């Protein structure tokens, strides 16, 4: 088992096998999303409170979930890189950041668009989940800004790992403090975005989308990490040999 782990950490090995696993994640992911989107849009029964607008949930919830999972991955990968000095872990963390930020943006955008017909406003400050998501986006920006500001890759890796680990604790605290704040200031009841109990017809496409998007995210992460590894290892011999080899891989 450890042998596999050590092998995995070897950049040329990872570079070779990543595309395979990426495909292994991509295909089932796309299939699940295809079902989730189709069923969510056309088969799931209409919500009695929100009408057809609730269907936005099929994009909003997976994005929000991924935005948080991505941050966890960033922090854990950074921690692994920091403690066990695994270069690959740092490459994963660096690749997860922009992906996570995109999904955070998507969660915020879809949440805002959903809010317009529901609450009559494009942005409801009092909604704790949207506020937490917005602050998460700031955490992502800070992380990417720190990485960008440090020229030396190894230093940037370690510094951003520390930041991500500090941020993980704070993200949780932010969530609870925003919830408390929202409970103080809620004028009207904020309509819950997901109904009290979900009809199975509504739930299955949602689960499918959550899993599907997660697999898709995994596939994108693997590919991004692969390129990141290539970039970091650009001056090594194995890269040189690979480039010069007769059958050029892309």
């Amino acid at each position, binding site marked *: 088992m450890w042998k596999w782990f050590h092998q995995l950490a070897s950049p040329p090995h990872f570079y070779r096998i990543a595309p395979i696993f990426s495909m292994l994640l991509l295909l089932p992911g796309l299939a699940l999303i295809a079902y989730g989107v189709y069923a969510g849009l056309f088969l799931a029964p209409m919500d009695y409170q929100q009408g057809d607008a609730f269907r936005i949930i099929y994009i909003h919830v997976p994005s929000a979930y991924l935005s948080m999972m991505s941050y966890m991955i960033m922090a854990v990968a950074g921690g692994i890189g920091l403690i066990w000095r695994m270069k690959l872990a740092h490459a994963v963390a660096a690749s997860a950041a922009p992906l996570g930020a995109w999904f955070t943006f998507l969660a915020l955008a879809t949440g805002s668009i959903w809010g317009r017909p529901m609450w009559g406003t494009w942005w409801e400050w009092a909604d704790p989940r949207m506020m937490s998501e917005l*602050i998460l986006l700031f955490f992502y920006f*800070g992380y990417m800004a720190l990485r960008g*500001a440090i020229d030396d890759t190894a230093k940037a890796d*370690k510094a951003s790992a*520390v930041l991500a*680990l500090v*941020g993980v604790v704070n993200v949780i*605290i932010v969530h609870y*403090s925003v919830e408390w*704040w929202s409970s103080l200031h809620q004028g009207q009841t904020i309509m819950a975005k997901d109904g009290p109990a979900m009809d199975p017809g509504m739930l299955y496409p949602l689960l499918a989308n959550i899993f599907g998007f997660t697999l898709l995210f995994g596939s994108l992460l693997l590919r991004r990490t692969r390129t990141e590894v290539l970039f970091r290892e650009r001056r090594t011999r194995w890269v040189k040999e690979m480039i010069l080899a007769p059958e050029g891989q892309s």
Partner: protein
Amino acid sequence: MTDHGRQMPGMLVGLIAVARRDLLLAWKRPGDVLNPLFFFAMVCTLFPLAVGPSAEQLTFSGPGVLWVAALLAMLISLNSLFISDFDDGSLEQLLVSPQPLPLVGLGKTAAHWLTSGLPLVLVSPIVAITYRMPGDVVIVLMLTLTLGTISLSLLGSIGAALTVGLHRGTALLSLLILPLSMPVLIIGANTVSLAAGNETYSAGIWALSAYAVGTLSLAPYATAAALRISNE
């Protein structure tokens, strides 16, 4: 040179020595202490100018405005936490000293709080009165600011350690610290608002205390790690 027969100074002595040095340096440069305070006062002046000085507006927005201004003033003062030591090489000396680095960081952070957080707390009643804040609410304000600025100094030291020596570190520092300081801001400002509205506010005080204690125990380690990384 160190005589191996003699005892190494204890950790508390080391911490006090580091803090004392910073306090002496701050004494020689009063601007470092006064500038954030002036900034605090000026920001608090901006709001009535921009939004109108009606009494209800002032009492309503007072807790929030004062808290935001205090947060921004702390941000300004945090810039210089490690910079001067970095510039003249004393930071490197601190890194190789036999004193545990977390304690060194704690000492500097303590001195920082004494020269930025504490003055803010002491000046806040003056500004609070201009916002027509009643005396008992001012007490709550000072209490929340005390607890809050302690957490801010500690969290800020992590950010300052991560960005020391970086080109354009100042803007980056703000970007890093603001998300981290949001819980403190939310809880602090809203606790004062609750007090102003004659509601129970003890939950916020407990939360701020817990946060201060939590950051006090954990932040020095993160700061030490960040200092080592920044100075390789």
